[in-house]
């Protein structure tokens, strides 16, 4: 188990590196540019009204403190890290005085729910059908599915979400196309509320699954068609081992590890797809919050979401990577 501890440490080091580089990017994109966010913010608020220069100056000072933009670049850098470390990005400007972190925590469960359900479905479905398609190469239904999946897979999330929205919103309006639940329904542990949440989640999940399944399906099919030529599969077939047993314990089981690794590597893209889909369907997750923050010129909120996104995705990838070795006896005992 000492080896596993060492692995955990190394993998954790990678996580720290991701967070470090990510936060640095966020910092330098915002600080090392000639554009001053405060001037921009003031320009936005004073666009439509004449303002007292003194008031503007006071606002300027207040914003400077609020955004942590006092002192030298180095002091700002340290201040920035302090904020990230305690996940406190100050109050949001657009929803003043609600802290940015509160807004993020409120949105995060929606994003997490949408992303994890859609990923579980598309990963599971794609791998299951892809595995079957790789093993039963002549099955017509599976072949057909492959063609459809290949056609859907390269379409970007936004376009797919948009097409789904048009189809179910305008052409055949049977499902709610925006929000996370019926607006007037009180939140709570009621059946009606859950039903509404379920209905509202259907289209975003559907559009994510339509795009996501294809990639896993194709990857798994290719993987399985390689695995079926492995000696241990050929040998089991020669040995008359039960076909279903071969499919499950020999073929699928050995394809599992690369596909889980693939999941960890694709988390960034999956997250991307989820937030974009949220934007289309007005789903109250991080994506939507981010867009609204941009429209409202809410500096702290934008930085907070960008930073927390990086950390959240890196953390999820870390968790998957730490579970991975437990699936493989070769690394487990090595």
């Amino acid at each position, binding site marked *: 188990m000492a080896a596993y501890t*060492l692995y955990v440490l190394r993998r954790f080091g990678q996580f720290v590196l991701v967070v470090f580089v990510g936060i640095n990017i966020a910092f330098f994109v915002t600080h090392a540019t000639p554009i001053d966010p405060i001037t921009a913010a003031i320009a936005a608020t004073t666009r439509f009204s004449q303002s007292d220069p003194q008031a503007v100056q006071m606002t300027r000072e207040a914003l400077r403190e609020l955004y942590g933009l006092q002192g030298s670049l180095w002091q700002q850098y340290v201040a920035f890290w302090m904020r990230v470390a305690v996940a406190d990005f100050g109050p949001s400007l657009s929803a003043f005085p609600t802290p940015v972190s509160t807004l993020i925590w409120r949105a995060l469960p929606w994003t997490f729910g949408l992303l994890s359900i859609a990923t579980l479905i598309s990963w599971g479905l794609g791998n299951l059908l892809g595995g079957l398609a790789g093993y039963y190469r002549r099955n017509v239904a599976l072949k057909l599915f492959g063609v459809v999946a290949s056609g859907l897979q390269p379409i970007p999330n936004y376009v797919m979400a948009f097409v789904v929205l048009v189809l179910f919103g305008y052409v055949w309006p049977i499902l709610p196309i925006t929000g996370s639940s019926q607006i007037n329904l009180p939140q709570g542990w009621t059946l009606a509320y859950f039903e509404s949440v379920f209905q509202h989640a259907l289209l975003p999940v559907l559009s994510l699954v339509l795009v996501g399944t294809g990639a896993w399906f194709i990857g798994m099919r290719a993987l399985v068609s390689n695995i079926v030529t492995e000696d241990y599969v050929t040998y089991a077939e020669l040995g008359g081992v039960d076909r279903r047993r071969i499919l499950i314990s020999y073929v699928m089981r050995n394809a599992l590890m690369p596909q889980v690794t693939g999941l960890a590597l694709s988390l960034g893209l999956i997250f991307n797809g989820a937030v974009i889909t949220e934007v289309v369907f007005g789903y109250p997750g991080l994506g939507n919050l981010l867009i609204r923050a941009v429209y409202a010129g809410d500096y702290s909120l934008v930085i907070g979401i960008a930073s927390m996104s990086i950390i959240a995705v890196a953390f999820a990838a870390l968790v998957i990577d730490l579970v991975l070795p437990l699936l493989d006896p070769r*690394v487990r005992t*090595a």
Partner: protein
Amino acid sequence: MSGDLLEAGHVTKSFAIGGLFGRGHFNAVDDVSFTVQAGRPEILAIIGESGSGKTTLARMILNTLAPTSGAIRFRGEELLEVRGRKRRLDFMRQVQPILQNPYEAFNPLRRVDRYLYASAVRLAGAQSQKARDEAVDAALQKVGLSLAEVKGRFPHELSGGQLQRTAIARALISSPALIVADEPVSMVDASLRMSIVNLFQRLRDELQVSILYITHDLATAYYISDRVIIMQKGKVVETGPAREVLIHPQHPYSILLKESVLSPDDVGRGRLTLEHDGEAMRLERIVR
């Protein structure tokens, strides 16, 4: 300059091991020393099973891998000091490899003759088209081929034996003093094998080339080599004249190795019996 063509002094190479988890070190080659004299061409066989470190040793002699400690000297010059394009080319002029798998030794997407011409130009200094053709053809003639047979061919258009002989011809273009052949016949078919092995003898006798013949096969080693080195787990366990060592091995491992070799002369004698004290050994090997 000393009289040694090649001198390996206390050469050790250690590798880090461990994949996803952990790290450790093991010595692939462990304190190996030997010399090959200049002016007295010989075939020196380095014999070992998989994991004996023989291939690692070959790579260090070819200067594609640096030893962790110890030194390898070629004509008195330490290989670590062979740096820079010019000195490397000088070294390659004199030391050439023969690789294991003739089908892998040439890029399948490229014509075979390109390697011959490159050697003629870069190593043998042939400038004109005519000089190049002559140098290449001369080398091919030495291995029983001709330029006409090889020119413009892709690797898949030649047989394994032809490819291996082409590879040997390429190595000969710069008239090297030493050839390092790593398992040169293990992937060659039985009916072609002896033509390659016999060729090595001719290279030694007629072209005065010394050959390091790296192999796991004691029978061919006995057939062609003058001296042998037997390696086990990175260490040299026995060395000496081929006849002496292979007929009367002294070290327990050499004895075991020799006794394990199957012989065609045993046909019908029923010598293939199981040693029933082998059980202990099998149990021990269950878990590494």
